[in-house]
């Protein structure tokens, strides 16, 4: 039985892991190490409530201060894990070695950047609270135009929030429709229509070929030759898992920390959240999931995993996420693939209020909802049960 636990990464997965251990009655020392200066905070409001100016930053605290104190954690903020050796069970923090007994890796991910924009004023990515506050300040200053590169969830939410603040906004997406790679073209076109009808200048099927400006961003040039003048650019083109510090650690690093079906990466070492790539036996493949809900579930699972020889069940969640854009709530459960059959099973595309099933090989694969939370959750249960396409359609038919 391990007497102490070290958690690297003081965000959602790491903190919820620490809380689970205390809930279970583990009373040994728990170190929670994070490289940001802030106490653990929630990231979804960074592209919504806080960016909009509706919330101050302290409202995003993941656990209220008084409850946090009860956890009795050794919280080490502003500290960065720099190296690991799993054979000698040694972790280096800010270059200093320390022994660990059980280690949970939850170092998350960081934003990809647009080449040629390093150090340029007016160019941002959004991951941290500091990123959010910098963009918020820039929006408050009344920019001539905001250009957002990438209409994934972060980019689309930033565009929606900026338009809500009255900032002229152009959203650039290299695919034919926002989220097309995840939800397919038909549903992606509905998301596009939501943005256009709310005043976003959405340009799809174009990429950025050049960024003009020296110290300050002045314009972006697109693959169709268009030049868009701008003084504020937010880049939302995905993330990379934070694994560089694990080179030479003895762990398998391949688009994340590779783990078995129980989130174990090596004896006494687990991983959770955006950085973890584990064998999800539900799908029979290694998966890395960047969703909030996954961090909330996987953090506790991976922390508890350090205290048992073998857990009763492997970690087999159905992925689920939500995104709020204007007054539309987008949710997706499961794993759609591009060649799935897509069927609207509730509501209608015209109203921007519908649920869609994705299926292939006689099975339900995913359910998408726009302002249809009840249907998405019922669909998620069908996915958890491994429902066939026909069974799923029969359930949906009863919704009408």
């Amino acid at each position, binding site marked *: 039985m391990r007497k102490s636990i070290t958690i690297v990464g003081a965000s959602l997965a790491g903190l919820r892991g620490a809380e689970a251990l205390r809930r279970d009655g583990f009373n040994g020392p728990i170190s929670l190490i994070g490289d940001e200066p802030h106490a653990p905070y*929630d990231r*979804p409001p960074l592209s919504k409530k806080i960016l909009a100016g509706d919330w101050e930053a302290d409202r995003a605290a993941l656990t209220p201060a008084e409850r946090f104190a009860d956890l009795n954690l050794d919280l080490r903020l502003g500290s960065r894990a720099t190296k690991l050796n799993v054979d000698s069970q040694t972790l280096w923090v800010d270059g200093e070695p320390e022994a660990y007994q059980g280690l949970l890796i939850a170092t998350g991910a960081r934003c990809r950047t647009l080449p040629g924009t390093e150090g340029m004023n007016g160019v941002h990515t959004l991951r941290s609270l500091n990123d959010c506050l910098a963009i918020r300040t820039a929006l408050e200053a009344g920019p001539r135009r905001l250009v957002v590169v990438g209409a994934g969830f972060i980019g689309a939410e930033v565009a929606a929030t900026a338009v809500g603040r009255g900032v002229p906004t152009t959203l650039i997406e290299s695919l034919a429709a926002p989220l097309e790679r995840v939800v397919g073209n038909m549903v992606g076109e509905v998301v596009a229509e939501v943005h256009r009808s709310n005043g976003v200048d959405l340009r799809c099927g174009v990429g950025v070929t050049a960024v003009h400006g020296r110290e300050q961003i002045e314009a972006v040039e697109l693959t169709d030759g268009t030049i868009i003048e701008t003084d504020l650019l937010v880049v939302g083109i995905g993330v990379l898992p934070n694994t560089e510090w694990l080179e030479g650690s003895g762990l398998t690093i391949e688009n994340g920390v590779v783990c078995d079906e129980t989130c174990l990466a090596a004896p006494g070492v687990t991983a959770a959240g955006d950085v973890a790539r584990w064998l999800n036996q539900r799908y029979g493949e290694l998966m890395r999931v960047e969703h*909030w809900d996954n961090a909330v579930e996987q953090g506790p699972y991976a922390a508890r995993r350090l205290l048992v020889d073998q857990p009763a069940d492997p970690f087999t969640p159905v992925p689920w996420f939500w995104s709020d854009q204007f007054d539309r709530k987008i*949710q997706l459960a499961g794993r759609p693939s591009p060649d799935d059959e897509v069927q609207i099973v509730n509501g209608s595309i015209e109203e921007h209020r519908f649920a869609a099933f994705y299926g292939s090989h006689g099975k339900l694969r995913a359910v998408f909802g726009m302002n249809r*939370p*009840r249907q998405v*959750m019922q669909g*998620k249960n069908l996915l958890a049960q491994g429902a066939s396409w026909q069974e799923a359609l029969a359930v949906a038919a009863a919704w009408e």
Partner: protein
Amino acid sequence: MRIVVDYDLCESNATCMDLAPDVFEVRDDDFLYVLNETPSDDRREVMEDAVRRCPKQAIALKD
């Protein structure tokens, strides 16, 4: 144990309904209804899970 929902925060993601459909229900009007505000104590673990899994942190338990 009493369920308290902050309806200013709640955005009807329905994760609570997923965990405890006998206590939480998101209806077709997209609003959350608490069907049982005082679940029995043997449901505490599930209720605490509903609190944690709420994306908007809109649910609280009061003793």
